[in-house]
């Protein structure tokens, strides 16, 4: 009796779960496996020669300095953007979580994370409008300053960094806010009443306790930034060649899909490595 009930439960569970997971299998997990296989092929679907399994696509990455240099460039971009997001975002989350109360806090919090759910492409486009020469920045500065200036940040490395920070800042604010909110205020009050200076409270209580949120936010920024291609394309122009844009090229311009697959997989390996390094801290948070 018990066994048949068990079986019926199992049957129902499978019935409820399998549609979702079959879908994920066909649209995510099989494609990722197919890409791994593809990255060892000598020719893509558009070639006519005999296809062979080769290592050449990965060798190209290691032998030609071009690709590894670009990956390094993308990793550095990721580090810069992540650092800026943490430095700018954490104090903002602190102000929200610890100094503002009630309905105001809710409303301001919503206002801060709202852009993060709106279309990222459109937000990058909006920076293109702001940063172009002869644009809004020029006009504003020239009104404020007594002398003529001309600022044209468009198509520079800085433009890419500004756009990416704008895109991903809300992630850091969100995760920091959640961990900061969980810190009991009486802990801080206790330290203060025992005479701890502000710096000690920050370094010994607030920062250690909000570390998981900072790490989570950092990972949420770093991973997509290393794989970004749309932002550098639009804001960076010729200064915007990164690992992501080269992968994009392999699929939409050069049509060297096997090389593209190998580069994508290299990126995935890097991403997984980062997630593995970060996971102990993230697990502790749960």
């Amino acid at each position, binding site marked *: 009796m018990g066994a048949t009930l068990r079986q019926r439960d199992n049957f129902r569970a499978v019935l409820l779960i399998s549609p979702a997971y079959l879908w994920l299998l066909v649209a995510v997990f099989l*494609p990722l496996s197919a890409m791994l296989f593809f990255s060892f092929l000598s020719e893509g679907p558009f070639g006519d020669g005999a296809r062979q399994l080769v290592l050449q696509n990965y060798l190209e990455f290691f032998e030609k300095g071009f690709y590894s240099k670009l990956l390094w460039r993308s990793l550095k971009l990721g580090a810069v953007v992540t650092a800026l997001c943490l430095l700018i975002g954490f104090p903002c989350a602190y102000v929200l979580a610890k100094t503002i109360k009630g309905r105001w806090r809710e409303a301001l919090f919503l206002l801060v994370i709202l852009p993060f759910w709106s279309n990222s492409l459109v937000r990058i486009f909006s920076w293109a409008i702001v940063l172009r020469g002869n644009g809004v920045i020029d006009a504003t500065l020239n009104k404020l300053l007594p002398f003529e200036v001309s600022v044209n940040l468009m198509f520079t490395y800085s433009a890419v960094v500004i756009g990416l920070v704008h895109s991903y800042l809300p992630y850091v604010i969100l995760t920091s806010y959640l961990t900061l909110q969980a810190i009991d205020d009486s802990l801080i009050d206790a330290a203060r009443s025992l005479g701890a200076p502000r710096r000690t409270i920050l370094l010994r209580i607030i920062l250690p306790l909000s570390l998981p949120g900072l790490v989570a936010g950092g990972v949420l920024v770093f991973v997509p930034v290393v794989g970004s291609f749309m932002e550098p394309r639009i804001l960076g122009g010729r200064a915007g060649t990164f690992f992501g844009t080269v992968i994009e090229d392999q699929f939409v311009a050069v049509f060297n899909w096997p090389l593209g697959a190998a580069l994508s997989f290299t990126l995935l390996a890097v991403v997984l490595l980062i997630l593995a390094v970060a996971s102990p801290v993230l697990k502790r948070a749960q």
Partner: protein
Amino acid sequence: MAMNRILMRLGRVYLGLILVFLYVPIMVMAAMSFNASEFYQLPIVFTTDWYARLWNNSAILDAAWNSIWIASVTTIIATALGTAAAIAFFRYDFRGKAILQVLLFPPIAIPWLITGTAMLIFFFAIGIGRGSRAVLLGHVALALPYVIVVVTARLRTFDPQLEEAARSLGASSWEVTRFVTLPWIAPGVTAGALFAFAVSFDQFVVSYFLSKPGDVTLPVLIYSAIRKGFTPEINAVSTIIIVFSMAMMVVVARYAKFGER
């Protein structure tokens, strides 16, 4: 104490600056969509001409229609499949459950560039190719994990004894789901559905790799238009999109209650 007050005030100023940084570009973009000058010349001369032109631009209208129906179908499929899976996770204990739950994270955590190109390769290999069907397949897969996570969160507040009570009173499994479980998790399901819609409607990367030229979604169309050189017409569409998606997220926030615990 005076020091404290100064710090408080500084904090607020800082928060204000962050909001300026986050919103000013969007406002500038929106303002330019009402500017008569095709080259974004200042000062702004007000016109609604660019919006009027949208109605006659069949490429933009087609793309908008594509975006809307793909997002709607994605929402229906992802919400149905995702809610079913979340309920199963909640109700039953079975081998491999933990692994299945962990498998929800790769689609969220792996950069879309990688997922998108992998889908392109695979869909080509099995004969689906590029086009709306491929885009739909991809969007549902991206939205599913979000729906499952959001509905699961709501289920944590649900007392399983309610299901047992209904069952012991003779309700069938379907009746328990329909009249006890679903009404309770309805806000979670709604939030999940809105998430699914947002994921699909704002999705650029995966759509970009999977759509066919001439049969694209709005973000893909905007991307290729930007790369050709921009016109205030793009500002007008972009403004509509951003107002629409922000309004939707305000609704989601009311259902999902972010930031409150």
